[in-house]
């Protein structure tokens, strides 16, 4: 039911929900959204729904305490760095406004409608390498460019803020107040803390402890007892809750509407299973603004949804079959070429599954009147592993940057501290993805690779961009293999098949890759082209009103439906073995 790429969701839930949603007056649409989300989640497991609602209530209550604590505090924060930043912030803001938010979600001006607005400028920025790229998509290693570290860090921070505080800033607050204010938890600790503020901090601590503890507990139980104990999407909604509390505490969220709106934010069905981890402010929850939906944003939403669906159903799911085949054979018995095919197969599968899902979630958000939240920005075009993760699952990367890396000092406290911070962040990232050892290995391997790139290879990589691209296309698929196989013995076996000089296999058929190659070549080619050429995606989106593109999208949609109907999901047609 909650699977976007199922007929049940697309043909049953979604149409009904959209009709009800659009018929609801714009002011009350969050109620509809909340009820719809509860319904969707209840179809998964009613017990997990109770947990979700309980956590929602707890977080709402504690948020109230934090807010009370903050309003009791004196207008904190001395903006010592206001001047240099305010100018940049203006630029950020300008770029942001001309960026995707206005393009995608708002009504276009009549002129744009006629000419077909230049869509998704952030992609163009990515290709052109303008500042827009840095501003919008910086993650942990923001200080890449030598000598600009400070400035860029400020940029990154400013950007993180902007989305959250845009609404607040409209209320004639000085533009730079927020970044300065945000510097703070440390600052406040030193000062004389009023009781109200202390209560706020206690509430924050309590909220974070409760959220983190319940996540860890569920993950632990899932690991030790039964894998289905982990409630659906918990990793995502817990992160939303933590960011909500932190933003409340920092004052990023200044105005907090009632329980319904907050609960809708935590539970909203487009994001509950796989993100994106939208911030409270990004979803414009911090205002009483009604959720207006234009025909324009509905159409954009449908376009993104169809593209995402195609990625998921026509690429990821197809390639997933091959990956399952390989597992079925048993890793000890695959030939080395097949092992490598498998590594790329899984990498592409994961990418198009996740990217497709994010596009579908983003598209659904647009249809409901939310801004488009981007999670992927052509990661395989990255010029290094650090850059890859500035383009992969942006909302998660940004979350770790804003709530872990930068509060710990980021890269501004010397090389050793930076290394430590990176390792901590990547260790946590690994843990977040799953509790088994392979995820922790995965996180640390990435952390180490990024540190190496940052401290040892920086010069070489700048001189020879090929090194970075090689890293992306060689190491990243290997790290995904670690990600994919949670049994360490199997994992070791897979690597001995990838690099056969470490040992031999059992019952290996040395030509086993050939039939698979013939069968899956079209999918590999399509996946590789889409990964390596951002223009395919960008142009499709930009020309979405072109009749040919429209027809293509229409056909893609129905081909997806064909696969949905004729493969899994239909117990009476289970001919798959």
């Amino acid at each position, binding site marked *: 039911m909650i699977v976007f790429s*199922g*007929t*049940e969701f697309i*043909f*049953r839930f979604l149409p009904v929900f959209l009709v009800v949603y659009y018929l609801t007056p714009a002011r009350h649409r969050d109620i509809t959204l909340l009820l719809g989300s509860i319904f969707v989640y209840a179809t998964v497991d009613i017990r997990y729904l109770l947990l979700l609602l309980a956590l929602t209530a707890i977080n709402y209550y504690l948020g109230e305490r934090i807010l009370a604590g903050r309003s009791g505090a004196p207008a904190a924060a001395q903006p010592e760095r206001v001047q240099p930043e305010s100018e940049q912030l203006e630029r950020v803001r300008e770029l942001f406004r001309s960026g995707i938010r206005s393009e995608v979600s708002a009504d276009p001006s009549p002129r744009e*409608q006629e000419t077909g607005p230049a869509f998704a400028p952030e992609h163009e920025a990515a290709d052109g390498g303008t500042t827009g790229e840095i501003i919008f998509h910086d993650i942990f290693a923001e200080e890449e460019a030598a000598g600009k570290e400070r400035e860029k860090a400020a940029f990154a921070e400013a950007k993180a803020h902007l989305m959250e505080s845009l609404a607040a800033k409209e209320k004639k607050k000085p533009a730079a107040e927020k970044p300065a204010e945000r510097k703070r938890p440390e600052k406040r600790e030193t000062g004389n803390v009023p009781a109200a503020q202390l209560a706020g901090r206690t509430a924050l601590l309590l909220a974070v402890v409760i959220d983190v503890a319940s996540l860890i507990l569920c993950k632990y139980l899932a690991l030790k007892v039964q894998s289905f104990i982990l409630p659906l999407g918990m990793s995502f909604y817990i992160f939303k809750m933590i960011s909500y509390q932190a933003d409340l505490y920092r004052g990023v969220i200044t105005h907090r509407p009632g329980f319904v709106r907050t609960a809708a934010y935590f539970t909203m069905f487009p994001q509950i299973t796989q993100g994106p981890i939208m911030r409270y402010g990004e979803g414009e929850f911090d205002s009483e603004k009604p959720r207006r939906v*234009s*025909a*324009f944003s*509905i*159409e954009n939403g*449908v*376009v993104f949804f*169809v593209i995402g669906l195609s990625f998921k159903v026509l690429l990821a799911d197809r390639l997933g079959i091959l990956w*399952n085949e390989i*597992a*079925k*054979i*048993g890793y*000890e*018995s*695959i030939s080395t070429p097949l092992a490598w095919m498998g590594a790329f197969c899984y990498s592409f599968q994961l990418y198009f599954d996740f990217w497709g899902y994010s596009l579908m979630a983003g598209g659904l958000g647009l249809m409901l009147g939310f801004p488009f939240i981007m999670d992927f920005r052509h990661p395989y075009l990255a010029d290094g592993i650090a850059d890859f993760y500035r383009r992969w699952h942006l909302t998660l990367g940004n979350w770790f940057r804003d709530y872990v890396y930068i509060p710990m000092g980021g890269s501004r406290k010397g090389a050793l501290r930076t290394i430590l911070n990176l390792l901590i962040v990547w260790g946590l990232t690994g843990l977040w993805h799953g509790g088994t050892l392979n995820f922790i290995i995965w996180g640390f391997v990435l952390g180490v690779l990024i540190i190496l790139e940052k401290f040892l290879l920086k010069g070489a990589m700048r001189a020879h961009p090929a090194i970075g691209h090689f890293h992306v296309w060689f190491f990243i698929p290997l790290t995904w293999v670690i990600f994919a196989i949670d049994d360490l013995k199997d994992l070791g076996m897979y690597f001995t098949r990838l690099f056969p000089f470490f040992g031999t296999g*059992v*019952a*290996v*058929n040395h030509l*086993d890759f050939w039939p698979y190659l013939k069968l899956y070549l079209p999918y590999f080619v399509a996946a590789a082209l889409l990964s390596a050429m951002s223009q395919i995606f960008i142009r499709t989106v930009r020309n*979405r*009103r072109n009749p040919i593109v*429209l027809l293509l*999208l*229409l056909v893609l*949609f*129905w081909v997806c*439906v*064909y696969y949905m*109907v*004729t493969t899994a*999901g*239909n*117990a*009476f*047609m*289970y*001919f*798959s*073995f």
Partner: protein
Amino acid sequence: MKKFLRRLKQMPLFILLLFSTGLLSLTAYAGKDKQYGEYETDPVSEPFCAVVFQGLKDGIYPWDILTGRVRTNETEEHLEALLSQLDAEGAGTAAAPKVTDNRDTSPVQEETTEPEEHADTTQPGGQEEEAQQESTSPVERIPDAETWEEDEYGSLVDPDNPTHLLADSMPENVNHKVMPAVDYGVANRQYMVADDTVFNTDKAGLFAQNGEYYTFREVNDVYFSDALVIGDSRTVGLREYGDLRPYASVLAKESLNVYNLFTKTLDFTTPDGTFETTTLLDLLLSKQYRKVYLSVGINELGIPDTQTFYQKYREALGVIRQLQPDAIIYIQGIMHVSKQRSSTDKIFNNTCIVQRNTAIASLANGHDIFYLDMNPEFCDENGDLYPELSADGIHLKASAYSKWHEFLLANAIYRDEDDYLGTGPIEEGVKIPGVTVPLEEEGGEETGEEED
């Protein structure tokens, strides 16, 4: 209104999707009693137009609705003809195979009548006629289901003939219920021989209804030289990784099942390196084999119900019997799935598999149709596939397929030397165990000792 139209113009894809959905639904509606008559959709989870796509998969195009074309398939027609011929023959003899439908859930009648049917169809082979003179009148053999007793596993058993199970004896809907392995794990013991059974002749056992009976023996790969191994993806694995390809002809493809057994295009390989695609029907019509191994049943687990499956399987055996009169037919029991799969999957679980195996095992006659159950060697005491043998819980790992190959070698039937040698080349020095070898070995899989 104008404003509304302008808005519509702003969302061309949205409109196109709505429009095409309507169009496809109309198509589905127009063809619902004709071309799409056989398809079902689940109204809760699927759009009405889903049948159009299901039809598309089977080669029924949406425009067929307009032109009124009804698809025909040569292979299927041929099969139909064969089946009706079989029916006619069956009616002409005493077997009366079609008395089955008078009881809705209990296939008692066909359970018991079928051995005769197969006895009939074996006649053309001419090999064993003497052995199987009508021992009992089929009319006498139809037991009264009321008198059947439930055994400790919940299966209905004919007290006069305990090796015969009522295939569909479980309560309704149990087919989709996940049961703990321990509840059913050893149920298939009922169609295997008891541990302390002693056979008095070297041809005893194996569901035999009459005449001579045979036991499984060990053979070597020469035995496969005139064998045809038919199956689904599991058999594909056996071919690719079980080292069977150099010895046996294999006809297999994933998603083969008893419903598309004869008409699906399959990959055919022979020991001499041939690789081509053909259907089972075409192959059986063009070549003769001495042994036919049949291994299907996992794909159709999701298709209710066991009785239909059983009927279809029986029908398939009839066709094979008719086209391959000299062949020993092996019914390979469906291999169980792992515990993890079985305990979480509503369809692919061992409860269902045991039920289906119980049904098809009863089709063996111990004479020229034999039931081979590899599960005792691949499963633990609860009937769950050993987890180390399988990665997905359903298929064997590549490295485990040789175990299946060995199992087939260790459990073969030969009635005389011709069965053993077949038509294949005889290698120098190949040991051919004679039919007179004493038979203390391998009592393993048989039942039928109740026969006198």
